[in-house]
């Protein structure tokens, strides 16, 4: 059973390009539809947890599903399973494709000169898609602009993204608390 668990997650890690949602749907197919290790409800439950926590979605869901199936040892096995293919493949690439080689081999240097601007484009695309799903309004659209500019500025302290993660979370909770208290007050008033 543990071996099965390992092999299943190893295969998912080895054959899925990109993490995130691409991987989630494949994990769901394997562990829910094909192997019946967890029910659909349990899987969706784990997905909520995985999304609410920091870290990589695919790793979070592997830990959760493994834990559900076989407890602590299951979560360790499934995590190793999903991480190991990436680790091995990148290690082999890193050993042979060194930064020195990329810079000094004229063919590779030219290829990577073309790739680098495309990589930037690959990061701009999710800026727009996440901005859309974040449902930014005129009252909140300034936040990403300020955050991006300050991280980009490389100024001490304010350029550290951790500061903005903590601040965003705290202010979000404070704002929600205020909104909750207000709605409670108006409820009390309307009852009077």
């Amino acid at each position, binding site marked *: 059973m543990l071996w099965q668990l390992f092999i299943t997650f190893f295969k998912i890690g080895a054959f899925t390009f990109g993490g995130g949602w691409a991987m989630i749907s494949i994990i769901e197919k394997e562990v829910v539809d094909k192997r019946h290790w967890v029910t659909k409800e349990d899987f969706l439950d784990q997905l909520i947890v995985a999304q609410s926590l920091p870290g990589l*979605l695919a790793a979070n869901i592997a830990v959760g599903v493994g834990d559900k199936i076989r407890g602590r040892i299951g979560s360790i096995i499934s995590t190793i399973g999903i991480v190991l293919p990436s680790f091995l493949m990148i290690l082999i690439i890193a050993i042979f494709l060194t930064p020195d080689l990329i810079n000094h081999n004229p063919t590779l240097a030219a290829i990577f000169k073309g790739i680098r601007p495309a990589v930037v484009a690959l990061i*701009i*695309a999710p800026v727009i898609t996440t*901005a859309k799903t974040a449902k930014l309004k005129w009252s909140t659209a300034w936040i990403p602009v*300020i955050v991006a500019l300050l991280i980009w500025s490389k100024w001490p302290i304010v350029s550290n993204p951790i500061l903005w993660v903590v601040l965003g979370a705290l202010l979000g909770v404070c704002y*929600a608390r205020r909104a909750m208290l207000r709605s409670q007050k108006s409820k009390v008033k309307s009852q009077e």
Partner: protein
Amino acid sequence: MIYLRLFWSYLKIGLFGFGGGYAMLALIENEIVGSGWITEKMFTDIVAISQMTPGPIGINSATYIGYVVPAESSAAFSNPFWGVLGAILCTFTVVLPSFLLVVYTSHLIRKHHDSWVVKGLFSGLRPVIVGMIASAAMLLMNGENFGTDTRDVVWSISLCAAAFCVVYFAKIHPIWVIIAAGLAGYFIFI
């Protein structure tokens, strides 16, 4: 000690990495490139290689960065053995917070994910995540990646714009975009 510093950096990356791999890039940029361990150019190459190999970008880049940084930091670590050790350390550390949090806090989250606290937390995080991804893109738009003479810059901007259109509007998978850009680069810059 480079390994302790890598461990500490990746612990922070794993712990504050809300919003997935792309948002994590801003953290990696700040921790790893900001420490002077690798150049912006190498970081961009690592992102490209991570995109082209199976697996989440956060894990792929951790392995590659862990392998490269010890040798870059000191000549004493130039033996590949030290690189493999670094790769194991960074890959392990980036999933460690995930692992502990999922195992020990999932019952709490299941109970409270509908509460105003969690909802408020994420309403505050979402705009920040957008800003973090944008900053990662902005930081990589530099002379190291786009070239410095006019011909290089013009070609680079055209490639970037074309790649964006193909990925965003035509929804072509990033791997094909990277392969096409590499081919284009070969013919343009050789």
